[in-house]
């Protein structure tokens, strides 16, 4: 039940992008094509999960025992950055073909707010490891959901004649706003 609440809340009610404003850059950047958006969603799923596990362990087995929680920001960011790189290197070394295919399919995954934000949030929310992972998974699902829906809208926008001043990012933001407005319907659902 508790996990259920975490999941519903993260995906619909407090959607990571539409309500929490985390990961807005990829939301605007990787949303011009539905399939790439879905791909990005999958990639974030993986990265966010392992990043959350690692930072959780660091927090509870290094920072807290040593009483240096204030190093949270700096250590997390370094760890996440290296982690992302490590996954890429492993893939590249182990299976260049797979790595290449991903390269064609997806733009570079970068550490963004969403990943660091979730890592910090699970600590703030005092989740245990399992809850943290569920939270990360649910948030990446919410991320993917918003991204894919939005990519659909942007594919639509690309085909219509948006007035000159609004074309591009402004209308994308307004659409995101209306999407967020629609998502407010989920308010109070947990």
């Amino acid at each position, binding site marked *: 039940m508790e996990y259920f609440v975490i999941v519903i809340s993260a995906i619909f009610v407090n959607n990571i992008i539409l309500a929490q404003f985390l990961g807005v*850059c*990829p939301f*605007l*950047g*990787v949303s011009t094509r539905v*399939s*790439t958006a*879905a*791909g*990005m969603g*999958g*990639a974030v*799923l*993986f*990265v966010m*999960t*392992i990043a959350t*596990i*690692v930072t*959780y*362990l660091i927090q*509870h*087995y290094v920072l807290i025992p040593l009483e240096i929680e204030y190093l949270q920001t700096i250590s997390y960011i370094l760890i996440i950055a290296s982690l992302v790189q490590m996954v890429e290197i*492993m*893939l590249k070394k*182990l*299976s*260049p*073909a*797979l*790595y*290449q*295919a*991903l*390269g*064609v*399919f*997806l*733009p*570079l*995954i*970068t550490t*963004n707010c969403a990943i660091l934000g979730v890592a910090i949030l699970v600590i703030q929310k005092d989740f*245990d*490891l*399992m809850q943290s*992972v569920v939270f990360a*998974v649910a948030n990446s699902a919410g991320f993917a959901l918003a991204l894919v829906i939005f990519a659909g809208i942007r594919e639509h926008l690309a085909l219509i004649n948006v007035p000159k001043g609004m074309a591009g*990012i402004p209308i994308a933001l307004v659409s995101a706003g209306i999407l967020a407005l629609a998502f407010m319907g989920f308010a109070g659902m947990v």
Partner: protein
Amino acid sequence: MKTVQEIEHDGIIQEIADKFISIGIVTKASCVSCEIGGSCSAGDVSGQTITIPNVYRNFSINEKVKIVLKESLGLRALFLGYVLPFLFVFFTMLIVNAITPNEAIVGLSSLAVLIPYYSVIYLLKAKLKKTFTYSLKKHYNF
């Protein structure tokens, strides 16, 4: 006959040999911001090259081309590269969590699953290479 969905990516032909063409992939940063502003060159790793069998005639070096990958292949790459390992991590976690309450063990063991996973990927290297095939398209100006 279903319409084939394709992913396209920009690339530049770097070398044309008798049997192979190698194409440098133009990487894109994931934030629009970085791309538009050109301010995040952290992402500009343009080292990725792809070699494909040369069955084409009408291409030249430095030509800008589209590398085409079937969408289903892209999704499969995604699945193998990210989704499957995620599932391993997640389920290992569920299982180990049921066995021991020690979070350090749970966390580390679920991360550790990645090692055998990647080993398997390594063993399948040749097969994967065959699976992922690309084709080239010109940029048309009509």
